[in-house]
Protein backbone atom coordinates (compact mmCIF):
# COMPACT_ATOMS: atom_id res chain seq x y z
CA UNK A 1 0.00 0.00 0.00
CA UNK A 2 1.38 3.41 -0.87
CA UNK A 3 1.23 6.32 1.56
CA UNK A 4 -1.94 8.34 1.82
CA UNK A 5 -4.30 5.81 0.33
CA UNK A 6 -6.37 4.65 3.27
CA UNK A 7 -9.87 5.85 3.89
CA UNK A 8 -12.46 4.75 6.37
CA UNK A 9 -16.17 5.46 6.57
CA UNK A 10 -17.00 8.10 9.19
CA UNK A 11 -18.52 6.73 12.39
CA UNK A 12 -20.95 8.20 14.91
CA UNK A 13 -18.66 6.75 17.59
CA UNK A 14 -15.93 9.28 16.69
CA UNK A 15 -15.33 12.26 18.93
CA UNK A 16 -15.53 15.73 17.43
CA UNK A 17 -12.43 16.79 19.36
CA UNK A 18 -9.47 17.88 17.24
CA UNK A 19 -6.99 15.06 16.71
CA UNK A 20 -3.31 15.39 17.55
CA UNK A 21 -1.03 15.87 14.57
CA UNK A 22 0.39 12.88 12.70
CA UNK A 23 3.81 14.14 13.85
CA UNK A 24 2.78 13.97 17.53
CA UNK A 25 1.06 10.60 17.23
CA UNK A 26 4.06 8.99 15.55
CA UNK A 27 6.83 10.49 17.71
CA UNK A 28 5.52 9.88 21.21
CA UNK A 29 4.94 6.19 21.74
CA UNK A 30 5.09 3.58 24.46
CA UNK A 31 6.15 0.49 22.53
CA UNK A 32 8.80 -1.14 24.69
CA UNK A 33 9.60 -3.68 21.96
CA UNK A 34 11.53 -0.79 20.40
CA UNK A 35 12.91 0.82 23.58
CA UNK A 36 11.53 2.46 26.70
CA UNK A 37 11.97 6.12 25.63
CA UNK A 38 9.01 7.89 24.02
CA UNK A 39 11.06 8.60 20.86
CA UNK A 40 12.67 5.15 20.69
CA UNK A 41 9.86 3.53 18.67
CA UNK A 42 9.99 6.30 16.03
CA UNK A 43 13.75 5.78 15.82
CA UNK A 44 13.84 1.97 15.83
CA UNK A 45 10.57 0.59 14.45
CA UNK A 46 11.55 1.02 10.78
CA UNK A 47 13.42 -2.30 11.11
CA UNK A 48 10.16 -4.23 11.52
CA UNK A 49 8.95 -6.30 8.55
CA UNK A 50 5.14 -6.12 8.44
CA UNK A 51 4.57 -7.83 5.09
CA UNK A 52 4.02 -10.77 5.07
CA UNK A 53 2.02 -10.86 8.30
CA UNK A 54 -0.23 -13.51 9.75
CA UNK A 55 -2.55 -13.49 12.73
CA UNK A 56 -3.08 -16.92 14.22
CA UNK A 57 -6.64 -17.15 15.53
CA UNK A 58 -7.39 -20.15 17.70
CA UNK A 59 -8.81 -21.53 20.90
CA UNK A 60 -12.58 -21.70 21.25
CA UNK A 61 -13.42 -20.66 17.68
CA UNK A 62 -15.25 -22.42 14.84
CA UNK A 63 -12.76 -21.56 12.11
CA UNK A 64 -9.27 -21.42 13.61
CA UNK A 65 -6.36 -20.62 11.32
CA UNK A 66 -3.86 -18.16 10.03
CA UNK A 67 -5.41 -14.94 8.75
CA UNK A 68 -3.82 -12.15 6.74
CA UNK A 69 -4.38 -8.48 7.58
CA UNK A 70 -6.52 -8.12 4.44
CA UNK A 71 -8.76 -11.01 5.59
CA UNK A 72 -9.41 -9.38 8.95
CA UNK A 73 -9.66 -5.75 7.84
CA UNK A 74 -10.61 -5.62 4.15
CA UNK A 75 -10.53 -2.16 2.55
CA UNK A 76 -14.31 -2.03 2.05
CA UNK A 77 -14.97 -2.62 5.76
CA UNK A 78 -12.68 0.12 7.10
CA UNK A 79 -14.08 2.82 9.35
CA UNK A 80 -12.57 5.99 10.73
CA UNK A 81 -12.72 6.12 14.52
CA UNK A 82 -11.49 9.32 16.14
CA UNK A 83 -10.87 8.28 19.74
CA UNK A 84 -9.46 9.79 22.89
CA UNK A 85 -6.42 7.94 24.23
CA UNK A 86 -5.61 8.11 27.93
CA UNK A 87 -2.26 6.66 28.98
CA UNK A 88 -1.82 5.18 32.47
CA UNK A 89 1.06 7.69 32.80
CA UNK A 90 -1.52 10.52 32.96
CA UNK A 91 -1.28 12.05 29.50
CA UNK A 92 -3.78 12.01 26.65
CA UNK A 93 -4.12 12.38 22.88
CA UNK A 94 -6.90 12.24 20.29
CA UNK A 95 -6.18 9.82 17.44
CA UNK A 96 -7.98 9.26 14.13
CA UNK A 97 -7.70 5.49 13.73
CA UNK A 98 -8.74 3.48 10.70
CA UNK A 99 -9.88 -0.06 11.36
CA UNK A 100 -12.69 -2.55 11.79
CA UNK A 101 -14.83 -3.50 14.80
CA UNK A 102 -13.30 -6.51 16.56
CA UNK A 103 -16.82 -7.93 16.89
CA UNK A 104 -17.00 -8.40 13.11
CA UNK A 105 -13.70 -10.26 13.07
CA UNK A 106 -14.79 -12.54 15.92
CA UNK A 107 -18.11 -13.21 14.17
CA UNK A 108 -16.19 -14.16 11.02
CA UNK A 109 -14.11 -16.78 12.85
CA UNK A 110 -17.08 -17.97 14.92
CA UNK A 111 -16.90 -17.78 18.70
CA UNK A 112 -17.76 -21.05 20.45
CA UNK A 113 -20.33 -20.88 23.27
CA UNK A 114 -17.78 -21.69 26.00
CA UNK A 115 -15.54 -18.71 25.22
CA UNK A 116 -15.45 -15.97 27.87
CA UNK A 117 -12.27 -14.06 27.13
CA UNK A 118 -10.05 -12.99 24.23
CA UNK A 119 -6.28 -13.14 24.54
CA UNK A 120 -3.87 -11.20 22.30
CA UNK A 121 -0.15 -11.50 21.68
CA UNK A 122 2.42 -9.20 20.06
CA UNK A 123 5.10 -10.46 17.68
CA UNK A 124 8.42 -11.60 19.18
CA UNK A 125 11.28 -10.91 16.79
CA UNK A 126 14.28 -9.54 18.70
CA UNK A 127 16.38 -9.26 15.54
CA UNK A 128 13.99 -6.54 14.36
CA UNK A 129 12.63 -5.37 17.73
CA UNK A 130 15.64 -4.08 19.64
CA UNK A 131 13.77 -3.62 22.91
CA UNK A 132 13.14 -7.37 23.06
CA UNK A 133 16.86 -8.09 23.39
CA UNK A 134 16.56 -7.25 27.08
CA UNK A 135 14.03 -8.92 29.37
CA UNK A 136 12.49 -5.60 30.50
CA UNK A 137 9.09 -7.28 30.10
CA UNK A 138 8.23 -10.97 29.83
CA UNK A 139 7.96 -11.20 26.01
CA UNK A 140 5.71 -11.68 24.17
CA UNK A 141 3.59 -8.74 25.29
CA UNK A 142 0.15 -10.10 26.12
CA UNK A 143 -3.23 -8.54 26.72
CA UNK A 144 -6.78 -9.68 27.15
CA UNK A 145 -10.40 -8.60 27.19
CA UNK A 146 -13.60 -10.10 28.50
CA UNK A 147 -15.70 -11.33 25.57
CA UNK A 148 -18.36 -8.62 26.05
CA UNK A 149 -15.61 -5.96 26.06
CA UNK A 150 -14.18 -7.44 22.87
CA UNK A 151 -17.62 -7.40 21.24
CA UNK A 152 -18.37 -3.80 22.28
CA UNK A 153 -18.87 -1.61 19.19
CA UNK A 154 -16.09 0.75 20.41
CA UNK A 155 -13.43 -1.97 20.31
CA UNK A 156 -11.55 -2.07 17.00
CA UNK A 157 -8.61 -3.66 15.27
CA UNK A 158 -6.84 -0.72 13.63
CA UNK A 159 -4.71 -0.89 10.51
CA UNK A 160 -4.18 2.80 9.85
CA UNK A 161 -4.22 6.32 11.23
CA UNK A 162 -5.13 9.52 9.43
CA UNK A 163 -5.00 8.36 5.80
CA UNK A 164 -1.86 6.26 6.26
CA UNK A 165 -1.32 2.56 6.79
CA UNK A 166 -0.43 2.00 10.44
CA UNK A 167 3.08 3.37 11.08
CA UNK A 168 5.37 0.72 12.57
CA UNK A 169 5.86 2.67 15.82
CA UNK A 170 2.08 2.71 16.36
CA UNK A 171 1.69 -1.05 16.09
CA UNK A 172 1.78 -2.02 12.41
CA UNK A 173 0.27 -3.72 10.65
CA UNK A 174 -2.67 -4.43 12.95
CA UNK A 175 -3.37 -3.49 16.58
CA UNK A 176 -6.14 -3.36 19.13
CA UNK A 177 -7.78 -0.07 20.21
CA UNK A 178 -9.94 -0.01 23.36
CA UNK A 179 -10.58 3.68 24.04
CA UNK A 180 -12.14 3.46 27.52
CA UNK A 181 -9.12 1.63 28.94
CA UNK A 182 -5.59 2.83 29.65
CA UNK A 183 -3.44 2.71 26.54
CA UNK A 184 -1.44 -0.34 27.56
CA UNK A 185 -4.53 -2.53 26.98
CA UNK A 186 -4.47 -1.58 23.28
CA UNK A 187 -1.87 -4.16 22.25
CA UNK A 188 0.21 -3.51 19.13
CA UNK A 189 1.49 -5.61 16.20
CA UNK A 190 -0.83 -8.52 17.01
CA UNK A 191 0.11 -12.02 15.78
CA UNK A 192 -2.16 -14.18 17.91
CA UNK A 193 -5.78 -13.99 19.03
CA UNK A 194 -7.06 -16.80 21.24
CA UNK A 195 -10.59 -17.31 22.55
CA UNK A 196 -10.52 -18.87 25.99
CA UNK A 197 -12.64 -19.59 29.06
CA UNK A 198 -10.03 -18.27 31.52
CA UNK A 199 -8.96 -14.71 32.32
CA UNK A 200 -5.85 -14.12 30.21
CA UNK A 201 -2.51 -13.01 31.62
CA UNK A 202 -1.70 -9.42 30.74
CA UNK A 203 1.93 -8.33 30.71
CA UNK A 204 1.75 -5.26 32.97
CA UNK A 205 -0.37 -7.03 35.57
CA UNK A 206 2.11 -9.90 35.50
CA UNK A 207 4.96 -7.44 36.12
CA UNK A 208 3.31 -5.45 38.90
CA UNK A 209 -0.17 -6.60 39.89
CA UNK A 210 -0.55 -3.94 42.59
CA UNK A 211 -0.22 -1.20 39.96
CA UNK A 212 -1.81 -2.63 36.81
CA UNK A 213 -4.98 -4.72 36.75
CA UNK A 214 -6.74 -6.84 34.16
CA UNK A 215 -9.53 -4.34 33.55
CA UNK A 216 -7.47 -1.12 33.48
CA UNK A 217 -10.55 1.00 32.82
CA UNK A 218 -9.78 4.71 32.86
CA UNK A 219 -10.96 5.76 36.32
CA UNK A 220 -10.13 9.08 37.99
CA UNK A 221 -11.13 7.69 41.38
CA UNK A 222 -8.76 4.72 41.41
CA UNK A 223 -5.22 6.01 41.53
CA UNK A 224 -2.10 4.27 40.38
CA UNK A 225 -0.28 3.52 43.66
CA UNK A 226 2.54 5.86 42.67
CA UNK A 227 0.59 8.69 41.05
CA UNK A 228 -2.86 10.24 40.80
CA UNK A 229 -5.22 9.48 37.91
CA UNK A 230 -7.56 12.38 38.70
CA UNK A 231 -6.17 14.65 35.97
CA UNK A 232 -3.90 14.34 32.95
CA UNK A 233 -1.85 16.48 30.62
CA UNK A 234 -3.03 16.92 27.03
CA UNK A 235 -0.21 16.25 24.58
CA UNK A 236 0.05 19.12 22.12
CA UNK A 237 -1.38 21.73 24.49
CA UNK A 238 1.95 23.58 24.76
CA UNK A 239 4.05 24.67 27.73
CA UNK A 240 1.16 26.19 29.67
CA UNK A 241 -1.66 23.93 28.50
CA UNK A 242 -2.40 22.84 32.04
CA UNK A 243 -4.23 19.70 33.04
CA UNK A 244 -7.62 18.26 32.17
CA UNK A 245 -9.89 16.30 34.48
CA UNK A 246 -9.90 12.62 33.64
CA UNK A 247 -13.37 11.27 32.82
CA UNK A 248 -14.71 7.93 34.07
CA UNK A 249 -14.17 5.35 31.28
CA UNK A 250 -12.32 8.13 29.42
CA UNK A 251 -15.70 9.70 28.63
CA UNK A 252 -17.13 6.51 27.04
CA UNK A 253 -19.35 5.62 30.00
CA UNK A 254 -22.53 5.78 27.93
CA UNK A 255 -21.30 2.91 25.74
CA UNK A 256 -19.48 0.80 28.33
CA UNK A 257 -20.55 1.49 31.93
CA UNK A 258 -23.33 -1.14 31.86
CA UNK A 259 -20.76 -3.90 31.33
CA UNK A 260 -19.40 -3.22 34.81
CA UNK A 261 -22.68 -2.79 36.68
CA UNK A 262 -22.39 -4.21 40.19
CA UNK A 263 -18.61 -4.61 39.99
CA UNK A 264 -16.37 -2.93 42.55
CA UNK A 265 -14.01 -1.06 40.24
CA UNK A 266 -11.55 -0.28 43.02
CA UNK A 267 -11.01 -4.04 43.38
CA UNK A 268 -11.28 -4.84 39.66
CA UNK A 269 -8.95 -2.03 38.57
Amino acid sequence: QSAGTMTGAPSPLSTDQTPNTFEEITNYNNFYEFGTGKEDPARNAHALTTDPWAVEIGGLVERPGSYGVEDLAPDNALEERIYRLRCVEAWSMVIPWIGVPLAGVLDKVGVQPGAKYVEFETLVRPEEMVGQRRAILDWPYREGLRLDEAMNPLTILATGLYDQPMPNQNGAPIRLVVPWKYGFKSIKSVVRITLTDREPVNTWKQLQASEYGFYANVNPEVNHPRWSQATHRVIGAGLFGGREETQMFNGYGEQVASMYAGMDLSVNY
Partner: protein
Amino acid sequence: MQRAVNDALRRIPVPVVWLAGAVPFALVIWDIFTGGLGVDPVAEIEHRLGRTALYFLAGGLAVTPLLRLTGISLMRFRRALGVICFAYAALHVATWVVMDMALLWGQMGRDIVKRPYLLFGMGAFLMLLPLAVSSNNLMIRKMGGQAWRQLHKLVYPAALLAALHWLWTIRVTEITPIFWVAAIVLLLALRLVIRRPLAWTRPRRA
Protein backbone atom coordinates in the same frame (compact mmCIF):
# COMPACT_ATOMS: atom_id res chain seq x y z
CA MET B 1 51.36 14.52 38.31
CA GLN B 2 48.96 15.29 41.13
CA ARG B 3 50.74 18.59 41.73
CA ALA B 4 50.59 19.47 38.03
CA VAL B 5 46.84 18.82 37.96
CA ASN B 6 46.25 20.88 41.10
CA ASP B 7 48.37 23.73 39.72
CA ALA B 8 46.36 23.72 36.52
CA LEU B 9 43.09 23.65 38.50
CA ARG B 10 44.20 26.63 40.58
CA ARG B 11 44.49 28.69 37.42
CA ILE B 12 40.82 28.09 36.53
CA PRO B 13 38.73 30.97 37.89
CA VAL B 14 35.61 29.81 39.75
CA PRO B 15 33.29 31.84 37.46
CA VAL B 16 34.19 29.38 34.69
CA VAL B 17 32.28 26.73 36.64
CA TRP B 18 29.32 29.08 37.07
CA LEU B 19 29.28 29.67 33.32
CA ALA B 20 29.56 25.96 32.55
CA GLY B 21 26.70 25.37 34.97
CA ALA B 22 24.49 27.70 32.95
CA VAL B 23 25.01 25.73 29.72
CA PRO B 24 22.34 23.04 30.32
CA PHE B 25 19.83 25.80 31.12
CA ALA B 26 20.80 27.73 27.99
CA LEU B 27 20.24 24.55 25.96
CA VAL B 28 16.74 24.16 27.43
CA ILE B 29 15.92 27.76 26.48
CA TRP B 30 17.41 27.24 23.02
CA ASP B 31 15.33 24.08 22.52
CA ILE B 32 12.15 25.84 23.67
CA PHE B 33 12.53 28.35 20.86
CA THR B 34 13.75 25.94 18.20
CA GLY B 35 11.27 23.13 18.88
CA GLY B 36 13.96 20.73 20.04
CA LEU B 37 11.96 19.42 22.98
CA GLY B 38 9.86 16.86 21.13
CA VAL B 39 6.17 16.10 21.37
CA ASP B 40 5.91 16.55 25.15
CA PRO B 41 7.99 19.64 25.94
CA VAL B 42 6.71 19.92 29.52
CA ALA B 43 7.98 16.48 30.52
CA GLU B 44 11.24 17.05 28.63
CA ILE B 45 11.98 20.36 30.38
CA GLU B 46 10.97 19.01 33.78
CA HIS B 47 13.01 15.81 33.48
CA ARG B 48 16.05 17.49 31.98
CA LEU B 49 16.23 20.08 34.78
CA GLY B 50 15.81 17.36 37.39
CA ARG B 51 18.52 15.18 35.89
CA THR B 52 20.90 18.14 35.67
CA ALA B 53 20.35 18.92 39.36
CA LEU B 54 21.21 15.32 40.24
CA TYR B 55 24.36 15.37 38.09
CA PHE B 56 25.65 18.49 39.88
CA LEU B 57 24.71 16.95 43.22
CA ALA B 58 26.81 13.89 42.34
CA GLY B 59 29.59 16.22 41.20
CA GLY B 60 29.61 18.02 44.54
CA LEU B 61 29.61 14.72 46.42
CA ALA B 62 32.58 13.50 44.36
CA VAL B 63 34.91 16.30 45.52
CA THR B 64 35.91 14.79 48.87
CA PRO B 65 36.37 11.17 47.71
CA LEU B 66 38.42 12.43 44.77
CA LEU B 67 40.68 14.40 47.11
CA ARG B 68 41.13 11.49 49.49
CA LEU B 69 41.75 8.96 46.73
CA THR B 70 43.93 10.97 44.36
CA GLY B 71 44.95 14.17 46.10
CA ILE B 72 43.32 16.19 43.33
CA SER B 73 41.41 19.08 44.84
CA LEU B 74 38.24 20.55 43.38
CA MET B 75 37.41 22.10 46.75
CA ARG B 76 37.42 25.65 45.32
CA PHE B 77 34.59 24.70 42.98
CA ARG B 78 32.41 22.85 45.43
CA ARG B 79 30.25 25.78 46.48
CA ALA B 80 29.50 26.57 42.85
CA LEU B 81 28.59 22.92 42.16
CA GLY B 82 26.21 22.91 45.13
CA VAL B 83 24.51 26.20 44.31
CA ILE B 84 24.14 25.25 40.65
CA CYS B 85 22.58 21.95 41.76
CA PHE B 86 20.08 23.87 43.88
CA ALA B 87 19.27 26.27 41.04
CA TYR B 88 18.34 23.34 38.78
CA ALA B 89 16.38 21.66 41.57
CA ALA B 90 14.42 24.90 42.08
CA LEU B 91 13.73 25.22 38.33
CA HIS B 92 12.69 21.55 38.27
CA VAL B 93 10.21 22.10 41.12
CA ALA B 94 8.94 25.31 39.50
CA THR B 95 8.35 23.48 36.21
CA TRP B 96 6.40 20.81 38.06
CA VAL B 97 4.30 23.40 39.92
CA VAL B 98 3.56 25.70 36.98
CA MET B 99 3.73 23.64 33.78
CA ASP B 100 3.08 20.06 34.85
CA MET B 101 0.58 20.53 37.69
CA ALA B 102 -0.76 23.86 36.39
CA LEU B 103 -0.99 25.33 39.92
CA LEU B 104 -3.52 22.73 41.07
CA TRP B 105 -2.46 23.25 44.69
CA GLY B 106 -5.03 20.82 46.11
CA GLN B 107 -3.90 17.91 43.95
CA MET B 108 -0.23 18.80 44.50
CA GLY B 109 -0.69 18.77 48.27
CA ARG B 110 -2.57 15.47 48.24
CA ASP B 111 -0.03 13.95 45.86
CA ILE B 112 3.01 14.99 47.88
CA VAL B 113 1.80 13.27 51.04
CA LYS B 114 0.49 10.19 49.22
CA ARG B 115 3.12 9.52 46.59
CA PRO B 116 6.52 8.40 47.84
CA TYR B 117 8.36 9.71 44.77
CA LEU B 118 7.01 13.21 45.38
CA LEU B 119 7.64 12.96 49.09
CA PHE B 120 11.25 11.93 48.40
CA GLY B 121 11.73 14.70 45.86
CA MET B 122 10.17 17.40 47.98
CA GLY B 123 12.15 16.20 51.01
CA ALA B 124 15.40 16.45 49.08
CA PHE B 125 14.50 19.93 47.86
CA LEU B 126 13.62 21.20 51.34
CA MET B 127 16.93 19.87 52.64
CA LEU B 128 18.90 21.56 49.87
CA LEU B 129 17.17 24.90 50.48
CA PRO B 130 18.99 25.86 53.73
CA LEU B 131 22.26 24.66 52.23
CA ALA B 132 21.88 27.01 49.29
CA VAL B 133 20.84 29.89 51.53
CA SER B 134 23.90 29.39 53.74
CA SER B 135 26.37 28.95 50.88
CA ASN B 136 28.12 32.27 51.36
CA ASN B 137 30.96 33.54 53.55
CA LEU B 138 28.70 35.77 55.62
CA MET B 139 26.54 32.83 56.73
CA ILE B 140 29.60 30.71 57.52
CA ARG B 141 30.90 33.50 59.76
CA LYS B 142 27.50 34.02 61.36
CA MET B 143 26.87 30.35 62.03
CA GLY B 144 30.41 29.36 62.92
CA GLY B 145 32.30 26.66 61.05
CA GLN B 146 31.19 23.84 63.32
CA ALA B 147 27.43 24.51 63.02
CA TRP B 148 27.76 25.23 59.30
CA ARG B 149 29.51 21.92 58.66
CA GLN B 150 26.90 20.13 60.73
CA LEU B 151 24.08 21.71 58.72
CA HIS B 152 25.70 20.87 55.41
CA LYS B 153 25.70 17.16 56.26
CA LEU B 154 22.06 17.39 55.12
CA VAL B 155 23.40 16.93 51.61
CA TYR B 156 23.84 13.19 52.29
CA PRO B 157 20.18 12.37 53.04
CA ALA B 158 19.14 14.85 50.34
CA ALA B 159 21.23 12.99 47.75
CA LEU B 160 19.74 9.64 48.73
CA LEU B 161 16.20 11.04 48.58
CA ALA B 162 16.84 12.66 45.19
CA ALA B 163 18.09 9.34 43.83
CA LEU B 164 15.08 7.46 45.24
CA HIS B 165 12.80 10.16 43.81
CA TRP B 166 14.00 9.24 40.31
CA LEU B 167 14.01 5.49 40.96
CA TRP B 168 10.40 5.59 42.18
CA THR B 169 9.10 7.00 38.89
CA ILE B 170 10.33 4.27 36.55
CA ARG B 171 8.03 1.52 35.31
CA VAL B 172 10.59 -1.07 34.22
CA THR B 173 14.29 -1.60 34.88
CA GLU B 174 16.01 1.33 33.17
CA ILE B 175 19.76 1.64 33.10
CA THR B 176 20.30 5.41 33.42
CA PRO B 177 18.47 6.08 36.72
CA ILE B 178 19.84 2.89 38.25
CA PHE B 179 23.37 3.95 37.25
CA TRP B 180 22.98 7.34 38.96
CA VAL B 181 21.43 5.87 42.10
CA ALA B 182 24.37 3.46 42.28
CA ALA B 183 26.83 6.33 41.68
CA ILE B 184 25.37 8.36 44.55
CA VAL B 185 25.36 5.39 46.92
CA LEU B 186 28.98 4.69 45.93
CA LEU B 187 30.03 8.31 46.52
CA LEU B 188 28.39 8.28 49.96
CA ALA B 189 29.94 4.89 50.81
CA LEU B 190 33.41 6.04 49.72
CA ARG B 191 33.53 8.77 52.33
CA LEU B 192 32.62 6.24 55.00
CA VAL B 193 35.16 3.67 53.85
CA ILE B 194 38.02 6.09 53.14
CA ARG B 195 37.95 8.50 56.03
CA ARG B 196 41.25 10.30 55.40
CA PRO B 197 43.54 11.00 52.47
CA LEU B 198 45.41 7.91 51.31
CA ALA B 199 49.12 7.94 52.18
CA TRP B 200 50.36 8.31 48.62
CA THR B 201 48.32 11.45 48.03
CA ARG B 202 50.37 13.36 50.63
CA PRO B 203 53.46 15.16 49.41
CA ARG B 204 56.62 13.28 50.33
CA ARG B 205 60.01 14.71 51.09
CA ALA B 206 62.64 13.83 48.55
